[in-house]
């Protein structure tokens, strides 16, 4: 008996192939009417092809009508990366795409096959999808993160505030018990100052950066490397013409002492569709 790789992966190959017709995993919608296959670039090497409606197409692979689930982080990561690579390939090919969220699987129902249901959906949503695609043409998403070094900033604040300098003096010249009280007061004051400064910086950065981009989402800040603290985490939609403005603004921020900038992109517009 000849054992192909396919046969090994699917001992019930016949049964699976019949059930495969039940679902279509959707990667993205693009403004193209090419009936084509992008080859075996999908999740787990599945063949990705276009389902066309008018001048729109959805890139899909045939699958069983069940969501992807795994307890293995490596497997899951490979799926996510494959999803992204298909979206990116379509994005590079056609210039604008609407990525679907991971695990969007359309199934048969209402007396129609999955692929027919997909066509009906493309038809029903045509105007909305077309409008979104047009609005996203020539634009890319960038992740922008600004962090600071809190110890450095705190040091600067303590140096420049007359109140705090006085307290520092107090700590040095007083007996231990009193010095401890001064230390407590100083730390409380510094904490408040830092929070106020962070809020100010956040507003200022948001305001400046939002003038260099087409659209903006504020994301939750997250923990960064030791000794740094994230002040601002943005997803930005940026047109080609405005990118140099954004880059210049970020260079300016990054050149400030104690400030760090991270720019991730260009990415398909995941956050703006």
């Amino acid at each position: 008996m000849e054992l192909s790789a396919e046969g090994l992966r699917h001992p019930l190959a016949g049964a699976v192939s019949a059930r495969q017709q039940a679902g279509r995993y959707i990667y993205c919608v693009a403004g193209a009417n090419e009936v084509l296959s992008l080859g075996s670039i999908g999740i787990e090497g599945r063949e990705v092809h276009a389902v066309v409606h008018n001048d729109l197409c959805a890139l899909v692979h045939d699958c069983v009508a069940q969501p992807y689930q795994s307890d293995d982080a490596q497997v899951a990561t490979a799926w996510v990366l494959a999803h992204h690579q298909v979206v990116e390939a379509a994005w590079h090919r056609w210039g604008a795409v609407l990525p679907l969220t991971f695990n969007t699987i359309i199934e048969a129902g209402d007396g129609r096959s999955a692929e027919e249901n997909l066509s009906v959906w493309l038809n029903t949503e045509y105007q909305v999808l077309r409008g979104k695609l047009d609005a996203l043409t020539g634009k890319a998403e960038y992740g922008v993160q600004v962090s600071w070094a809190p110890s450095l900033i705190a040091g600067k604040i303590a140096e420049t505030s007359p109140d705090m300098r006085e307290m520092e003096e107090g700590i040095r010249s007083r007996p231990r018990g009193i010095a401890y009280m001064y230390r407590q007061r100083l730390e409380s004051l510094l904490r408040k100052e830092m929070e106020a400064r962070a809020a100010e910086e956040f507003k200022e950065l948001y305001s400046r950066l939002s003038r260099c981009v087409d659209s903006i989402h504020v994301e939750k800040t997250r923990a960064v490397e030791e000794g740094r603290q994230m002040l601002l985490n943005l997803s930005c939609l940026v047109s080609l013409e405005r990118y140099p403005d954004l880059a210049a603004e970020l260079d300016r921020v990054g050149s400030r002492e104690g400030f760090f900038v991270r720019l991730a992109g260009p990415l398909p517009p995941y956050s703006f569709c």
Partner: protein
Amino acid sequence: MSRPQVGLVDLLDRVLDRGLLINADIIISLAGVPLIGINLRAALAGMDTMVKYGLMQEWDNGIREAARSGHNMPAPATGALPASVMPPRLEEGVAAWQ
């Protein structure tokens, strides 16, 4: 500024939590909730801290709720800070510089 680079975390956040949502019966779902990234996120939690996992889930639910009620559109970039956006809280940082 260093050259822009896309990291795994940039992709995970976006592929799992963003992208177009189809609100239709023809999408596979579990008890009415689209099964999008939920199990996957549980699998990936081991790659990051549980704190982040918790944050992401809360955040994810918020985004999906907004999407369902049709308020998923990003703010127009006018330079003005939307009233709903709060500056960061520095609890972690307090420990960092004390």
